């Protein structure tokens, strides 16, 4: 049976939430479930190109643990989900506008394109919606 699409609205830049979004997106995608992730607000900052790994994520107690234990990097998980499954990432066009960024300010090979919230919400009516 075909799975319905998982839509993830990622707006927190907290390490723990970016990590959870990446885990959900990658595992669902490799489990033959289509996934679309819409990245906005502080979350977009975690995807800035050429940011050193130790500066990319901020968080609380669990962030420290994730770094100490060398948990899989969220960007690596998103990339694996894209390579091995049906995973799309969209950069919020409003967030890019506010930052004065173009898509090329974000890490290469992760985003399909910039997208407006209206289109994402419209598409998401047919699937399961999760906000982080």
């Amino acid at each position: 049976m075909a799975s319905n699409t998982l839509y993830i609205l990622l707006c927190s830049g907290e390490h723990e939430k970016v990590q959870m979004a990446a885990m959900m997106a990658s595992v669902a995608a490799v489990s033959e479930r289509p996934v679309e992730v819409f990245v906005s607000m502080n979350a977009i900052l975690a995807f800035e190109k050429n940011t050193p790994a130790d500066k990319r994520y901020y968080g609380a107690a669990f962030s420290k643990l994730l770094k100490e234990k060398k948990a899989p990097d969220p960007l690596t998980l998103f990339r694996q989900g894209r390579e091995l499954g049906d995973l799309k990432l969209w950069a919020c066009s409003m967030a890019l506008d506010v930052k004065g960024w173009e898509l090329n300010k974000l890490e290469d090979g992760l985003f399909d394109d910039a997208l407006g919230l209206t289109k994402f919400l419209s598409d998401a009516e047919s699937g399961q919606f999760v906000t982080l």
Partner: protein
Amino acid sequence: MATRETIDARGAYCPGPLMELIAKLKLVQIGDEIEVLSSDKGSANDIPEWVKKVHHEMVGVTPQDGYWSIVVRKAK
């Protein structure tokens, strides 16, 4: 002739061992087996769940000394 390859994913946290398994499954032939060595308890449960969902075959999950041996056969 079917082969068996081993991935040593000990020390990797969820979903690292699963991702390594899936990447390797793409490269082998139907009937081949992959053994994943994982120290992550979640993966010992999650990998069989994933195998069931996407219709590969579980050969077995064997507890070892501080890790699990999880063997999967590529079925499609």
